[in-house]
């Protein structure tokens, strides 16, 4: 990976031709690393033994040619050129002991690593695509038999549903107008009174929404008020130790449960 500084001859005719060919086809490249990888092939050596200095020269020539031919190069090609010019100077000049930062050799080694890695990825990509593929070389079952789904429906209802259902019937005539007369505000005291009466029956986790007072669930304004006060009342009851409250996720339904003496 160490550059052989002595043998660097001016670029051969063949290499110049290769570099020019590259310029003409610059659109076909996938970025500066791709150009470097292609250039490195002209060295006809194992990527581990590549001369990064030589590669930097080749790349800089490539950029020069592009400029001469007035080909617009994308910014990252120019960034790479500047970096390689810097690397070249580092490699050529004797190391400055005062200088912190990585040495030219370290930078060159990393570039060689990047090239080798990119080449390796291309090689395995080719091997991957050369594998037998589903739908081309091997095939799935042509007549998959659908799994018949036997659906069993079970119905659920909570004790609260039952109580509310019953209360609904028993109060059908008077209850609704009675509530409708009120303003659309359900006070925390009302909610607390209501909840105290109800929590005794909340043995299992029940959605808070089901505790909303009858007739307050539909109208958005009333619903908001009832939800807010019921939530506040729930928190109060949790504080008092009568109730447990949980929410599985942000915006998920809030569940309530009576707090039992022996917690499970």
């Amino acid at each position, binding site marked *: 990976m160490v550059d052989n500084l002595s043998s660097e001859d001016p670029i051969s005719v063949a290499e110049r031709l290769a570099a020019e060919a590259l310029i003409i086809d610059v659109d076909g490249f996938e970025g500066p690393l791709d150009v470097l990888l292609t250039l490195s092939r002209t060295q006809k050596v194992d990527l581990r033994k590549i001369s990064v200095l030589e590669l930097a020269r080749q790349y800089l020539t490539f950029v020069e040619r592009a400029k001469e031919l007035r080909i617009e190069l994308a910014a990252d090609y120019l960034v790479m050129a500047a970096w390689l010019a810097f690397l070249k100077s580092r490699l050529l000049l004797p190391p400055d002991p005062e200088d912190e930062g990585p040495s030219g050799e370290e930078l060159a080694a990393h570039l060689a690593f990047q090239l080798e890695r990119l080449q390796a990825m291309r090689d395995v990509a080719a091997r991957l695509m050369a594998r037998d593929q589903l739908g081309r070389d091997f095939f799935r079952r042509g007549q998959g038999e659908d799994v018949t789904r036997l659906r069993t429906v079970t119905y659920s*209802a909570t004790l609260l549903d*039952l109580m509310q259902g019953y209360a609904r019937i028993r109060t059908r005539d008077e209850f609704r107008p009675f509530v409708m007369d009120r303003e659309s505000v359900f006070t925390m005291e009302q909610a607390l009174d209501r909840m105290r009466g109800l929590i005794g029956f909340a043995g299992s986790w029940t959605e808070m929404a089901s505790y909303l007072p009858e007739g307050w669930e539909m109208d958005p304004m009333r619903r908001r008020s009832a939800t807010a006060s019921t939530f506040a009342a729930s928190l109060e009851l949790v504080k008092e130790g009568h109730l447990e409250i949980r929410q599985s996720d942000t915006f998920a339904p809030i569940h309530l449960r009576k707090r039992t003496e022996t917690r499970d």
Partner: protein
Amino acid sequence: MTDDPRDAPAESLFDAPPMAEQERMVEAVLFASPDPVSVRDLETRMPHGSDAAQALELLRKRYEGRGVRVVQVGEAWVIRTAPDLGFLMQKETVETRKLSRAAIETLAIIAYHQPCTRAEIEEIRGVSVSRGTIDQLLEMEWIRLGRRRMTPGRPVTFVVTPEFLDHFGLESARDLPGLKELRAAGLLENRPPPGAMPVGEGADESETDEDQSELFEEE
């Protein structure tokens, strides 16, 4: 394309793959094809000189007694699940749905007023109760038939079941929150409903009242 070995043309003997190989081919084609495959179709796909019919016969025998079978459908062949394993192709899913409002109300009335006739349920709900609703509750085994009322027509009554109590975590129907509690909970309005007991009028009060008072007034 013929079953008669004498007809097997000499020139293709060299081309045709061994029968075991032909059997593999038939197997793969039957497996992958979305439709049943005819012998003719098999042979156009297979190397020249292949005897698809014979390969099919070998394959069919090979699959005898296996989990899938090679079967003929009209002129064509197909691989199918063995009939005795059809049950594996079914997946049971359980879906939980909320009980309808009508069903809940009906159930609540039966629970609070049991034993309770259909006419009583309808009187309390103020609407007729569909046969389907009762059937659903019966099917769920949350209600069952109680003894018949000793009134004209001897109507059947409904009562809740142990399954019902189990589902709602109740020891008995008496554990249902009484009117007082419902009232305290704000589920019932404070004013006593018109005519102290608006339900179960007419039909033999005696029994009903007894049941109700047991249920509701105890505390």
